[in-house]
């Protein structure tokens, strides 16, 4: 179980002579991902979802709040002590091209972490070889034909599978997939998504999916939770299919309305929401963060709404005027 409570992260950008500019990447984010569970963080670039993923994988520190891994508070530990816990959380990079060392064969890439593990657990060299072949088989690659190759000899999809195999060498508890399919050919994306789902089912690995493409988050399991993040704040949170079918926060609705409709196959939603556009998108720091772009803003929006539960709505949301709107396209066959 991995949880976060009120995680805050502020980046200081080197500014001009007048001083540094602060960028508030995360403004107190709560989340909980159970063992073997699934969650998706969705939002646009710069919303803080990637930073949150990196914090969870131990690659970035946080300024306030607490991250707990299996009940252990990470801020109470020294960096050296934290390391074995963060090893259980493996990040799958967006770019499978830079995630593998071009000068090392797949065999070398997999052997390094396995050798370390063999040393720690007193296993033999033969175990390393067996395990390397095993993790490759787990991700649907043929060890015989892949091991001796260099990354450049593999396609993007195969590389991403190798990256996942490498993460599996340390028996992780959770995989954090940051836009893991966005650089992969369209016809092969579902293969990687299906693999992540399959690993969840077979190995009980939890999957955290970080993406701007809401549709892909459905494919890692229907028991997953969706977190919609806007400017460092979770604005809506609930079961994947509930949030997609019945979004209540205007930002979620804008995001879902923006997804292209496959005319001919699908019929667009009846109440699409288009956010107000401004030259300075999202600079305002007071009140509801989405209010400057919100077509439905009301009197109370000068205050900052917190994630809350209201009657008759299945998911949590951070909006004073939540209202269900039908924004998502439906298949022709359903209508």
């Amino acid at each position, binding site marked *: 179980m991995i949880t976060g409570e009120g995680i805050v992260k502020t980046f200081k950008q080197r500014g001009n002579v007048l001083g540094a500019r602060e960028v508030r990447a995360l403004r107190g984010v709560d989340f909980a991902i159970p063992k073997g569970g699934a969650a998706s963080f969705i939002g*646009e670039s710069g919303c803080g979802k990637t930073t949150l993923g990196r914090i969870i994988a131990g690659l970035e520190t946080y300024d306030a709040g607490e991250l707990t891994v299996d009940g252990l508070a990470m801020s109470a530990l020294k960096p050296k002590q934290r390391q074995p816990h963060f090893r259980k959380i493996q990040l799958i990079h967006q770019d499978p091209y830079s995630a593998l060392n071009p000068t090392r064969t797949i065999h070398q890439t997999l052997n390094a972490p396995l050798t370390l593990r063999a040393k720690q657990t007193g296993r033999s060299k033969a175990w390393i070889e067996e395990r390397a072949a095993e993790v490759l088989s787990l991700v649907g690659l043929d060890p015989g034909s892949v091991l001796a190759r260099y990354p450049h000899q593999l396609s993007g999809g195969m590389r991403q599978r190798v990256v996942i195999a490498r993460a599996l060498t340390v028996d992780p508890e959770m995989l954090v997939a940051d836009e893991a399919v966005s650089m992969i050919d369209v016809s092969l*994306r*579902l293969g990687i998504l299906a693999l992540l789902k399959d690993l969840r089912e077979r190995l009980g690995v939890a999957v955290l999916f970080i993406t701007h493409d809401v*549709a892909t988050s459905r494919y890692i399991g229907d028991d997953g939770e969706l977190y919609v993040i806007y400017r460092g704040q979770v604005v809506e949170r609930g079961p994947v299919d509930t949030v997609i079918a019945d979004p209540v926060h205007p930002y979620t609705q804008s995001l879902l309305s*923006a997804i292209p409709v*496959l*005319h001919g196959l699908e019929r667009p939603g009846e109440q699409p929401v288009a956010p107000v556009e401004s030259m300075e998108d999202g600079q305002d720091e007071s009140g509801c963060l989405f209010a400057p772009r919100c077509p439905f803003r009301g009197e109370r929006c000068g205050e900052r709404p917190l994630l809350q539960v209201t009657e008759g709505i299945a998911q949590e949301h951070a909006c004073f005027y939540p209202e269900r709107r039908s924004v998502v396209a439906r298949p022709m*066959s359903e209508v």
Partner: protein
Amino acid sequence: MPGQAPGVRIDGLTVVYKTPAGELPAVRDVSLRLEPGTITGIVGESGSGKSTLALSLLNAVQPPGRIAAGSVDIDGLGDVVGLRGEELRKARGRHVGYVFQAAQNSLNPLKTVGKQVLDLGRSHGVEDLRGLVRDAKELLGRMGLDGARVLDSHQHELSGGMRQRVGIMLALVLNAHLVVLDEPTTALDMITQANILKIVREVHAERGLTTLVITHDIGVVAEVADRLAVMYGGRLVEQGPTRQVLGDPRHPYTKGLIRAIPRLTGDISEARALPGRPPTLATVPERGCVFRDRCELRMDVCETDDPAATAHGDRIVACHAVKVREHA
């Protein structure tokens, strides 16, 4: 201004690239018609040859590539493949506007947008530069931007969506009526993408353009295009009216591609990835159908004969299996 939208006829176009293994075709024997005033979308994965095809429209294929055969006939310009030097340079910009892939990053970082508009005007011998800037301002205003302010800005002061709009403005400001957009929304956020697509549609209609959109994302084409052409391994495998192709794909690749798109609603268990991987320049088979290795309908004839593009009403499909079925 309206009524000038040119038609384009691409016939038997073959573009080859010189590699250590000899000259390999990136685009092979492609024929495509862009009707005046329509938006055509070309969809393909990496290595399908879609960007090469787009460059051929301007005769702008760079060495080691070259147009080996075929013609690109544009109304008012003639066969572009025969154009050279100064004529060609004039045609680009005046007749054909091109919005490059990652147009967000193709602005000059050292000059304001306004200066770049002036540069463009001077290099095309525009006499009324004042009028050109006025047009630029108007176009930017039409796309929902504060024109004066954007013209005074440097690239780094603009967001990705704004730069993309500047790219579209630069393609249109010389009054081109044929516009090519290469991956117009890649690397943009969903909401920005939706805005840009809306602008593309509106500007297309208002200015009376013929538009070609190149993308890997079927969703983008579905939103804007009247006609859809699907490329695979340098071949055009299927084309037709967008709604028809999406609603009832004929070619097994189109079918597979549509089935492989993650969808927001509907039964997710129906979706599945295509087996195998898309071919690269080096792995495209020399003879026979380019898609046969991943095809569930493959027959013996697919090994030896490249299927010809055959018209079925409004649709053109290049597949042996479909042909057999249509005639059965």
